[in-house]
């Protein structure tokens, strides 16, 4: 598959101009409601002096500007997007339509529960599905993203040990060296010290874990399968080690696409698990967000979940419960990213339990297939002979090329893999196709990766709207808005 991105050039140095450059000083603003006739007089001391400089442009100018920008962008709707650890699967259009229905889109969080029973029913049902999928007894769907879920989980850990009187001594959160950066960042945000546990042959090194698993450990935070795409096959032993030391087991569900419908984190001894609905559960990533990061827990941690908690009364009516003195409190306004929750609900209903399981099996099959096709040319370090799950990490080491250059070349075919992550793999190329790609798409992408090894890559990419960008000077002298850029 070759690809040539749209490019609109207003000059040799500028593609699509900035709105500030398209602005017409004399343009009239759009028609707006004039107000009901209350005539306010804004006190001088409160009124704004410096007029903000927003663009003055016609509606068609706005439409063309952003349409052109969209054509200089790449999404799952455009082509294969095998960005490792991001689970870039098809985002069903139906779910977006459903979220736009007025009874879902135009409801205010301050409405009385009796006026939003339909919405609460969806949250309730989704909660029960996600509890089943994780094998946990209680859940909150409030966290707005995976990292927000991690922070919520870490606050639950903190409150749990505070109540046990052990917080002063349990200061450490153990995290494998394959973890996403958000794990240590979340643990640190909750006030814990982070201790990195090394891997051996692509899995947590149990001996190293034993050595550090003492009564200073609050939790072990692990992504399963890990970022190498390898399932932690001795996870039951890991849980025993951590529980024996009195710590809690935290499951990062970023890679749940490998396991949903197949196996449950609750069965592996986890006490807390978060899911990323914008990954395995198909909600669109939106160029960076929004997401949703529900946190499921075992029953002994239920009282620590954030408020409010959704309840169903004896009459079948849903309501929010704000009580709970042990709760970690409020982690966001409102009740969760309902627009995202609704899409995930629709996705689970469309596939059903059987379909989720099939999605996981297909994602894993595709990943192993692609890994084997690449293996002769690209080494796949760690865990030799172990099956991969939803993703795998190849290395450009020894190929004579750098992962960076290969990625830039691949941009001519579609989207690049994740590169230089996980850090334990030299020249890493992290690849995750997901179950929504056909075999033909996977084959074409693999051919592109093999092809790259025979090419001069130093001038790539050539088919995108710009060539290689100078990231170093961008950071040295940051220009973060159009005033700084245009002067």
């Amino acid at each position, binding site marked *: 598959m070759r690809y040539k991105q749209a490019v609109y050039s207003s000059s040799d140095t500028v*593609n699509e101009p*900035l709105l500030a450059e398209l602005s017409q000083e004399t343009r009239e603003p759009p028609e*707006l409601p004039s*107000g*009901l006739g*209350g005539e*306010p007089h*804004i006190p001088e001391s*409160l*009124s704004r002096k*410096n007029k*903000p*400089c*927003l663009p*003055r442009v016609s509606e068609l100018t706005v439409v063309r500007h952003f*349409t052109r*920008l969209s*054509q200089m962008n790449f999404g799952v709707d*455009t082509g294969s997007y095998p960005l490792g650890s991001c689970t870039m699967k098809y985002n069903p259009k139906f779910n977006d339509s*459903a979220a736009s*229905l007025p009874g*879902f889109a*135009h*409801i205010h969080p*301050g409405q009385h529960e009796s006026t939003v029973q339909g919405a609460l029913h969806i949250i309730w049902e989704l909660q029960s599905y996600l509890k*089943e999928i994780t094998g946990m007894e209680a859940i909150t769907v409030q966290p707005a*993203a995976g990292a927000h879920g991690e922070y919520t989980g870490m*606050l639950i850990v903190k409150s749990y040990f505070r109540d046990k009187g052990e917080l002063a001594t349990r200061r450490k959160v153990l995290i494998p060296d394959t973890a*996403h*950066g958000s794990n240590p960042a979340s643990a640190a*945000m909750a006030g814990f010290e982070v201790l990195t546990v090394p891997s051996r042959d692509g899995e947590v090194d149990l001996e190293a874990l034993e050595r550090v698993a003492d009564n200073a450990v609050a939790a072990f935070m692990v992504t399963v399968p890990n970022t190498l795409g390898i*399932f932690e096959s001795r996870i039951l032993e890991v849980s025993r080690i951590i529980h024996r030391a009195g710590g809690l087991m935290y499951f990062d569900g970023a890679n749940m696409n490998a396991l949903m*419908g197949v196996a449950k984190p609750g*069965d592996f001894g986890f006490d807390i698990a978060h899911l990323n609905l914008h990954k395995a559960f198909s909600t669109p990533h*939106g160029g*960076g*967000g929004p997401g949703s990061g529900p946190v499921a827990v075992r029953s002994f941690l239920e009282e620590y979940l954030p408020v409010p908690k959704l309840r169903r009364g004896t009459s079948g009516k849903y309501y929010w419960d704000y009580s709970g003195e042990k709760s970690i409190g409020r982690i*966001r*306004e*409102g009740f969760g990213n*309902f627009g995202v929750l609704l899409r995930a609900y629709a996705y689970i209903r469309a596939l059903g*339990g059987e*379909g989720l399981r*099939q999605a996981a*099996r*297909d994602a*894993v*099959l*595709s990943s192993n*297939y692609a890994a084997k096709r690449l293996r002769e040319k690209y080494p796949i370090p760690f865990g030799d002979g172990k099956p991969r799950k939803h993703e795998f990490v190849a290395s450009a080491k020894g190929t004579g090329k750098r992962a960076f250059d290969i990625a830039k070349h691949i941009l001519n075919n579609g989207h690049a893999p994740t590169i230089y*992550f996980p850090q334990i793999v030299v020249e890493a190329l992290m690849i995750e196709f997901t179950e*929504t790609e056909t075999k033909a798409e996977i084959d074409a992408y693999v051919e592109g990766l093999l092809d790259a090894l025979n090419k001069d890559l130093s001038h790539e990419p050539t088919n995108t709207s*710009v060539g290689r960008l*100078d*990231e170093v000077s961008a*950071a040295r002298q940051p*220009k*973060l808005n159009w*005033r700084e*850029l245009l002067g």
Partner: protein
Amino acid sequence: MDVEPDEFGHPYLGLTKKERGEMLGFLGIRSADELFVDVPIKNGVKGLPSPASESLLFQELYALNKQNKNCLDHPCFLGGGSHLHYVPAVVQRICERGEFLTSYTPYQPEISQGMLQAMFEYQSMISELTGLDVVNASHYTYGTSLGEAAHMANRVTGRKKIVVCGAVNPERLGVLRAYAYGRDLSVVQTAFDSHSGELDPEAACNQIDSETALVYSESPNYFGVVEGSLKDLASRAHSKGALFCQGFDLISLAILKSPAEVDADMAVGDGVGSPMSLGGPGLGLFAADKKFVRSVPGRLVGATSDRSGKRGYVITLQTREQHIRREKATSNITTNSSIIALANAVYLALLGTDGLKRLAEAILSNTVYTQRELGRLRGVVSPLFSGFSYQDFVFGFEGDSDRLEQRLMDSDVLGPSRIGSGYGLGGGLWLVGVSELTTKQHVESLANIIGGVSNEV
């Protein structure tokens, strides 16, 4: 070898049975089961429904949507953090474009210039409105932006005390407490003036000391009152070595003093341009003075050029972020609210400076009109506070508030909402939110209900 490919088919799945068979053959295995041999317990799931057709799902979801009373069919007087606003049709159409909506974080800049430029323009326009140079893209909500501001102030000053001045939205205050809990920060709340509804400057200044990391106030505040003493507050904070953060309403910045004009170091708020959707997903706005650029949390897009000298955009200063700095990052944030930041950029581009000003004036006009109409009713003190109000305001009700609450529930009017008794002002207080969509008929409906209850005494 004979292969046993899975048979389940679905439009959301890419592989056919035949393709699965070919892949199994290539791998030299009989079944996909062999790829899961290292998973010790595979209980599957039992409590999930069977697959549903799109048409069936549509019927079910349509029926559930009808069970909710929406703010287009019913007059809405709810405020307190979320507000109904009309969103021009262009905004949704642009945000639905798959090239934007189904893209990931633009880590590969050459193929993602569209989203990067849109985020750069978002940063630029929020920077224009707040007057602060550095705007990140983005946070989850107003409240989580505030939580991150507290963490940043703690990082910058090395101090642990957060002083919250005046009437701050209680949900947001709750979020701040949860973020404070993580870093073991203390949160102190200072009084408001019960006559004006504004923060009490003396009470605030008494709490700001050499232990203070952050001073925070919202304007408009929880009561809708615009704070008049923010500049003095900022000055006091700075004299003690603390940072000052203002919470703001985006549209109001077209007419009300900007955070930069009151010398704020940071500013947080929420976005416009996306539907309320029961309160999420939303957008947390975060802006800061340039001197803190290397301490701010979240994603920043910067301008640069490619090898031929062509202008381009990249995610920059990434060494602050979790994927590089791990436990030493300025925040754990990864997934944020980019598509809603895009919606904000489109929204602001459509309205422009003058359009936004007219919109803010219309909201203000409706605020004053509604205050006055309710104030005509027997047993109603509206507005309760003498301070200047924007969008939200408080009225006092001398009648039976329990009965009023019941009447409102039985009616087709959504809101206003009752203010809890935790403010030391006694009972019978109601918070009203208006918008540019408020009509005279809406206000009349509300006035009739309140007047009806008032006259029943």
